[in-house]
């Protein structure tokens, strides 16, 4: 990349000229080009922290999300292992008969619909995420020619939010259907786990919806392209993970009771 676009001395000084669409990243185009070749011995990795190109903060945020999700995975794995133990924990009663109180909880059919909705929402959020990284539009937006990618991403993010809310509503209906059949959290070992799993997952999804709303606000308000990208990207990964967790948990509830 010719040094006329990226004079090195401006690389070294940390200025943030947002009007100039320079978010302190050396006024580099926000595309994920690995430089270092092309004759200019100017490798982004040789730069001091915080000036290694546009994807640096993004990668950092992604890393954090992935570690958080790993912890979350352990959380659900712990619950699932408890599920297996409790499921097959019978006992010998006074008359030496083997008793296992575990009665499988019927899955309300609406949960299948919810699952479909959640998968669909995963697709929409992925589309939104892809939009944020379409290279030419990113370049336009970075050059200040309107906000093409943000504008095209907003409807998809909102769609995801709506679908997420639909999912939660569907779960609510499922719970109330079970309540109508007098199946509650406390009813039976299997219902303990059904409600525990659906509730905890719903809480996670609620957090996800909060993140989506924050993202929407950010898309409107934030003046930095990078922030907007990070918001959408991390929310999308979190949302995907929640979808994946739900597939496993739902399969567990449907097939392994």
């Amino acid at each position, binding site marked *: 990349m010719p040094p006329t676009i990226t004079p090195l001395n401006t690389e070294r000084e940390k200025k943030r000229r947002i009007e100039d669409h320079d978010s302190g990243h050396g006024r580099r185009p926000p595309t994920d080009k690995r430089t270092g070749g092309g004759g200019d011995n100017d490798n982004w990795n040789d730069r001091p922290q915080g000036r290694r190109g546009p994807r640096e903060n993004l990668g950092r945020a992604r890393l954090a999300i992935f570690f958080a999700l790993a912890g979350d995975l352990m959380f659900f794995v712990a619950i699932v292992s408890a599920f297996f133990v409790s499921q097959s924990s019978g*006992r*010998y009663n*006074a*008359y030496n008969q083997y008793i296992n109180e575990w009665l499988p909880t019927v899955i309300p059919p609406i949960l299948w619909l919810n699952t479909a909705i959640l998968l669909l929402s995963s697709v929409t959020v992925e589309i939104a995420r892809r939009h944020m990284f379409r290279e030419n539009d990113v370049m336009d937006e970075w050059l200040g020619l309107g906000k093409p990618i943000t504008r095209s991403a907003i409807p998809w993010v909102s769609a995801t939010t709506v679908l997420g809310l639909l999912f939660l509503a569907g779960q609510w209906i499922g719970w109330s259907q079970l309540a109508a059949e007098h199946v509650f959290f406390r009813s039976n070992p299997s219902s303990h786990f059904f409600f525990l799993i659906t509730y905890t997952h719903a809480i996670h999804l609620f957090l996800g919806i909060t993140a989506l709303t924050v993202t929407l606000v950010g898309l409107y308000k934030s003046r930095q392209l990078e922030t907007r990208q990070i918001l959408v990207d991390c929310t999308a990964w979190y949302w995907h993970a929640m979808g994946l967790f739900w597939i496993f948990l739902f399969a567990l509830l449907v097939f392994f009771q």
Partner: protein
Amino acid sequence: MSPIFHTAAVLSLPWWLPSNASVHGATLDRHLLLNLWIILALLTLAHLLLIVGLLRRRTTELKDLWRIEYLPLAILALLFALLTVKAESLWAASRYTGADPAALQIEVTGVQFAWYFRYPGTDATFGVTKPQLVAPGEGNPLGIDPTDPHSADDFITSELVLPANREVDLHLRAQDVIHGFSIPEMRLKQNAVPGHTIHVHFTPTTPGTYAVLCTQLCGLGHYRMNATVRVLSPAEFAQWLATKQKAAQP
């Protein structure tokens, strides 16, 4: 009383394991002693190396030769492996297999904060217990079901009376919280867990009275949840059993 006095008192008294009164205890003690000697040796060796190394004249640093780095590790690995094998074999001997069917069956129940010992009586079967029927006030602390024919001749004691040199099979149960059943002199320790019946078996040898302690935090009375084991000669035990059973008959 002054610290010095107590140092003297401590040093004068023999601080060691309580006397052993069980069959498997002897081997356990030997293995424990072996371990203690080994770690004492390793402890002194390591500290000697450390101190000598610190005191001697400065030289150029050790190159990490394999014989400094890996040989000691290999030796330690071998040592630990041997200890593990020995320990596992002892553990297998005492726990992998159940008690001999002819063993004396006794049910031990832990309740905040007491131990109850139930003997099956002449029919050699324990009567049914139901938690709904538990009524310590009416002399039924374990909730024995009177309608069950087996329960008529069961009798409950507050001290564990055993014959010497006969294997005992304890059925450990807990009514409320986790308790730890432990007889230090028998080198025996096993938790009693609510909802589980855990078997542990051993053979007392020397007659005498020994302590039963609760070794798992079970509430504010934990420190006083003790009982007594009385090991009798077989003849005495038969006599004791006879009197108890006569008393138990309706």
